Structure formats: structure tokens, C-alpha cells
């Protein structure tokens, strides 16, 4: 057998553990999503309004930090081990980072779940965007830091494998999947500087009572320094699947390996210096800095549009190899009966729609129309909630046999599941965007206020609320199907043999056509750092000089800083 689990049983164990953690978080987060969808539309309110924010935090943290990142580390472990064709350098180290992530998860989860009861003082109703002034129990932040350190060590583990491989293969191009992992992790190291600084220097000392106050704008800015690139951290494994697995499932070959590498390098360069576009309405950051962030964000559309071309061209290649003809007729020759293919293709389609709402978010003027409205969750339910989540679920129908050695329970049931997810999100995504245009706020248990009405351009608010509730129910049915199917396949209830999926076919234009400079990750990281400095140095300096490191209230540390540095700043000015 050529299965991953037979060749690398110990690494397959880690991949399975990571995926199990990931899907557990997906299940928990999904149930919270249903509660929210029914609560804020008024159809069924089983929790108090105040508890809504505990539910919302659990939904956000489970979905966008735990589900996505656990899946990522599992999938990346497979990608590195399989593409370099070598075992982990030290499997104990691999287990160490996984269990660090688990320990962090347990701490953060305990803090969030404490919000459901008054029996403890544990609480973390701070949402997934946990910047000040919202404050959680310190164990929440300690848990998050531990979790992130786990991901850092995972990156170290994969870099060790890559360096060892390079020593044995001098002059060879890095295999595509390993290249994608390394560029993504470099981006992650740069991005997490922001959140690490925000938590370790400011939010955690404040939560522990070591300092009296924080500069809220500073912690917000440091959060979004991390908070935007994290969306690419979710997205990069999905991109890897679209580039590497989807063409194979379609019966074709990747159109261009060099283009795929360029896309990942562009994400390394441009993901971080964009975070300020989440702060267009924040007072205290000058318009000029916001304009720079907008420009970088618009440049970031380029790798996504390159991906749209390359991935569709690779699918078309498959369709034509399978006998497809015509300008659009080839679409009929794609394997729509396979859930792994159909789910990923529909996820890509939804991502194209999300591209439009993302352009609206990114534009400084249009952002004012939709800022803090339900449009924004509408946008990211199409990106992370469909492009990423549906790709992860769909790919599991292909991926699971590789790591468990068991066949999937039923392709037909899988097909129903991915179609239901797409359908549910069509209702929910569409309605959320339109409600947002009408001005209904996000992050709100009760969106209605006396004397305030929301006018929709088309349809009524109650019809749109019904669409959200209907969408949440369909998505939950899809999720339950997925979990049941996963259980049946994992434990091999039908005793289906695992298919031998063979090797991933070579790209039409192979790595030998890529410019050699693409391999120089030091250079790309250095350029990324320069771009970050250009975008962030001045805004951060201006935020700190306006209100100090710890807010205008002033603390011993803040005052000491101002005492020591302001004369110097005066001289320079």
C-alpha cells in the first residue's frame, strides 16, 4: 500500500490527533452558531442576552482559532512529511508542540466555559477579537499564548525537516507543498509578533492587575497586526488543497507550479501590512496611514486573482483530459459526483463572491457603509466559513483514508453534506450581507432598538432574518451529517478498503521553470519586514506618543517612559 499511514505511522498519529481536535472544535463552534443564528433573529432564545456573548466568544474562538489551526497543523504535517518523503526529525518534539497546543486550548476553553456559570470567577466574554477594553480572566490569555507557542514550535519542526532535506538534496527545488508550508509559517511568525506583544506586554499584565490601564488603541492595532494575516493562515491550507489536490481530483494537472509559488511569496510579503484596514473608523490613526493599508490590501487581491486563474485552468485541464469540450461545456465533464471535488469547487465559487464583499470592506469610503454591520460577518462566513471550512470538510473525504487506512463510509452521503453546507451558506451569507447594508449591527444579541428601523433595498428585514435562521439550521444539519459520517468512516463501520490514491501528478509547468530567487526565503522575509516597518512604525509611534504605552491614565511604567523619552522626542522634533 502507498498510504501515508503505512509509510509514516507515527506522523499519521499526529495528523489524526490534530484533525480530531479540529473537528471537535468545529462541532462545538457549530452548535454555538445555531444558538446565535436563532437568538439574534428572535426565533428561539434559549440563553440570556448576557450569555449570548459567551456563546459568541465560544463560536468565534472554536471556529477561527481552533478548528482552522488544528486542521492546518495536521495537514501541514502531512504535507511536509509526504512531500519531503522523510520522517519527523524527532517525533517527541512533534508530540510536544501538539500537546502544548492542547494545553493552551484547555486553559482558554476553561476560561470561556466559565462564562456560562456564576460558580467560578473564570470568564472570557471578550470575543475572538480579544483586544481591550474587554477583559478576560488571565488564564484565557495564558492559554492563547501557550497555543500560539505550540504553533511556533510546529513551524520549527517543519523547518528542521526542510533544512535536513536541503542538506541531502543540494541544488534541488523544494517540493511545492513544503515550499507552501515554509512561506505560510514565515508569514505566521511575522503576524504573531503583534498578538504576542499585545498579550504579553499589555493585556496580560493588565488582566493580572500589574498595571492599572492599557492604551486601548495600541492593543487594538497590535491585535489587527495579527488579526488580518491570521485569515491567510486559515486560507493557505485551503489554497494548498486547491493547488495540489483539486487538479488531481478533477483528473488534471496543476497548470503552473511557479505561479503557485509566486502566490505564496506574495502572501508572505503582503499579509501583515494590511491590518489597519480593520480600523478605518478608529480615531487616533491618521487617514494617510489608513490609505497605505488600503493600498497594500488592494495589492493583496493579486495573489487571489492569480489563484482563481491557476486553479480554474487546472480544473479545465482535468475536464478536457476526461473528454470535455466547448467554451463552458467542459464544466459538465468534471467529477461532480465526488464530494471531495464538488465541495472544494463550490468553496472556490463562494470565495469568488467573498472577493467582492472583501473589496468593499477594504475600500476606505465604502467601508463606512458596512463597518460594524452584519455585512462583515457575512463576508467572513463566505471566506473562512465556506472557502476554508467547506474545503477542509470536502478534502477530508479524500484525506481521511490516507491517515486512517480506512475508506470513506459513503461518497453519496458526503455529496449531500457538502451541498447542504453550500446551500445553507447561500441563505445565511446573502441575508447577512443585505442586512448589513440596511445597517443592522454585528456582535449584538438584540439588534432592535426603540425608534430605530432598518430599511432594506430589497425584501424585508423579517424575511432576511428568516433566511439567517434557515441558513443556520441547514448548516447545522450539514455539520451533524459531517460528524456522523466522519465517525462512521474513522471507525470503519462499513469496512470499506482505503483507495490507493497514488501520487500527485506533476504540474504542466514544473518547478524547474520557477526563477531560482523564489527559493530565497530570507530575501522574501526581509522584504516583508521592511513593508511591515513602513506600514506600522509611524502609526504605532504616533499612537504611543499620543497616549503612552498604558493609556492616558498613566501608570508608573507609562510615566517613566514618558519621563525618559519625551525630552528626547522634543529634541528630535
Amino acid at each position, binding site marked *: 500500500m502507498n498510504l501515508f499511514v503505512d509509510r509514516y505511522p507515527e506522523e499519521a498519529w499526529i495528523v489524526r490527533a490534530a484533525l480530531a481536535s479540529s473537528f471537535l472544535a468545529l462541532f462545538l463552534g457549530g452548535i454555538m452558531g445555531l444558538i446565535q443564528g436563532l437568538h439574534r433573529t428572535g426565533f428561539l432564545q434559549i440563553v440570556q442576552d448576557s450569555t449570548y456573548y459567551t456563546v459568541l466568544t465560544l463560536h468565534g474562538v472554536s471556529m477561527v482559532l481552533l478548528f482552522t489551526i488544528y486542521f492546518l497543523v495536521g495537514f501541514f504535517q502531512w504535507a511536509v512529511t509526504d512531500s519531503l518523503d522523510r520522517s519527523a526529525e524527532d517525533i517527541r518534539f512533534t508530540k510536544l508542540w501538539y500537546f502544548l497546543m492542547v494545553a493552551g486550548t484547555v486553559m482558554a476553553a476553561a476560561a470561556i466555559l466559565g462564562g456560562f456559570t456564576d460558580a467560578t470567577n473564570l470568564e472570557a466574554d471578550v470575543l475572538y477579537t480579544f483586544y481591550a477594553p474587554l477583559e478576560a480572566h488571565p488564564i484565557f490569555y495564558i492559554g492563547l499564548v501557550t497555543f500560539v507557542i505550540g504553533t511556533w514550535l510546529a513551524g520549527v519542526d517543519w523547518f528542521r525537516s526542510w533544512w535536513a532535506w536541503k542538506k541531502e538534496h543540494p541544488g534541488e527545488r523544494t517540493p511545492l507543498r513544503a515550499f507552501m508550508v515554509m512561506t505560510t509559517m514565515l508569514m505566521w511568525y511575522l503576524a504573531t509578533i503583534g498578538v504576542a506583544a499585545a498579550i504579553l506586554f499589555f493585556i496580560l499584565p493588565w488582566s493580572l492587575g500589574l498595571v492599572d490601564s492599557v492604551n486601548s488603541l495600541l492593543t487594538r492595532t497590535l491585535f489587527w497586526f495579527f488579526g488580518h494575516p491570521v485569515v491567510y493562515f486559515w486560507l493557505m491550507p485551503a489554497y494548498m488543497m486547491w493547488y495540489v489536490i483539486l487538479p*488531481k*481530483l*478533477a*483528473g488534471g494537472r496543476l*497548470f503552473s507550479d511557479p505561479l503557485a509559488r509566486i502566490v505564496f511569496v506574495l502572501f508572505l510579503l503582503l499579509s501583515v501590512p494590511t491590518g489597519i484596514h480593520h480600523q478605518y473608523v478608529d480615531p487616533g490613526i491618521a487617514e494617510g496611514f489608513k490609505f497605505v493599508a488600503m493600498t497594500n490590501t488592494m495589492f493583496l487581491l493579486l495573489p487571489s486573482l492569480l489563484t*482563481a*486563474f491557476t486553479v*480554474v485552468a487546472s480544473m*479545465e*485541464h*482535468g*475536464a*478536457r*483530459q*476526461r*473528454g470535455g469540450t*466547448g*467554451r*463552458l461545456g*467542459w*464544466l459538465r465533464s468534471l*467529477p461532480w*459526483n*465526488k464530494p*471531495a*471535488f464538488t465541495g472544494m469547487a463550490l468553496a472556490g465559487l463562494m470565495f*469568488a463572491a467573498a*472577493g*467582492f464583499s472583501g473589496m*468593499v470592506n477594504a475600500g476606505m*469610503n*465604502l467601508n*463606512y*457603509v*458596512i*463597518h*460594524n454591520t452584519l455585512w462583515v460577518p457575512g463576508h467572513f462566513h463566505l471566506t473562512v466559513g465556506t472557502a476554508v471550512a467547506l474545503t477542509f470538510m470536502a478534502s477530508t*473525504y*479524500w484525506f481521511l*483514508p490516507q491517515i486512517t487506512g480506512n*475508506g*470513506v*463510509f*459513503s*461518497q*453519496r*452521503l458526503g455529496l449531500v453534506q457538502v451541498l447542504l453546507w453550500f446551500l445553507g451558506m447561500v441563505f445565511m451569507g446573502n441575508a447577512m450581507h443585505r442586512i448589513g*447594508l440596511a*445597517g443592522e449591527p454585528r456582535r449584538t444579541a438584540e439588534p432592535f432598538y426603540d425608534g430605530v428601523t432598518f*430599511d432594506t*433595498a430589497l425584501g424585508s428585514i423579517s424575511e432576511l432574518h428568516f433566511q439567517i435562521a434557515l441558513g443556520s439550521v441547514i448548516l447545522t444539519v450539514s455539520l451533524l451529517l459531517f460528524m456522523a459520517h466522519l465517525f462512521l468512516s474513522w471507525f470503519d463501520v*462499513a469496512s*470499506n*478498503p482505503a*483507495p*490507493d*490514491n*497514488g501520487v500527485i*501528478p506533476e504540474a*504542466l509547468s514544473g518547478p524547474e521553470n520557477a526563477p531560482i530567487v523564489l527559493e530565497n526565503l530570507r530575501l522574501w522575509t526581509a522584504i516583508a519586514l521592511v513593508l511591515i516597518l513602513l506600514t506600522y512604525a509611524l502609526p504605532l509611534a504616533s499612537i504611543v506618543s499620543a497616549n503612552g504605552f498604558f493609556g492616558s491614565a498613566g501608570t508608573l511604567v507609562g510615566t517613566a517612559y514618558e519621563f525618559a523619552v519625551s525630552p528626547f522626542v522634543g529634541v528630535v522634533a
Partner: protein
Amino acid sequence: MDSGTESASADAWDGEIETEIGHDEYDPYGTLTLIGIYFVIIALLWVFMYFVEFLGEGPTVM
């Protein structure tokens, strides 16, 4: 494919390829068509946003 009888691969490379198409024979004009349609849709949506934002003359969220 029904459950219980599945042994075939989940990808289409096993026995479903009619003709192998190499780098030089492949012309992705179907992709061009799809991307063209996408750009038309995006352009129309931008025109729509122009009406929402500038010609509606209603108060915005802010």
C-alpha cells in the same frame, strides 16, 4: 458509488482519462470565459455599490 461497494479511488486519474493533454497542446479558453464572466459580475456589482453609496443620498451607518 454506494457505500459498501466502494473501492475506487476518489480522484479521476484512475481509468477516467481519455486523452493526456500536455503543456503545449493545452489552451485554457474555458477559464478565460469563466474569469471574464466573473469580471463582468464584479463590475456590475461595483456599479450597484455606486448607487447604494453615492446616489442613495440616505444617511450611512456612520
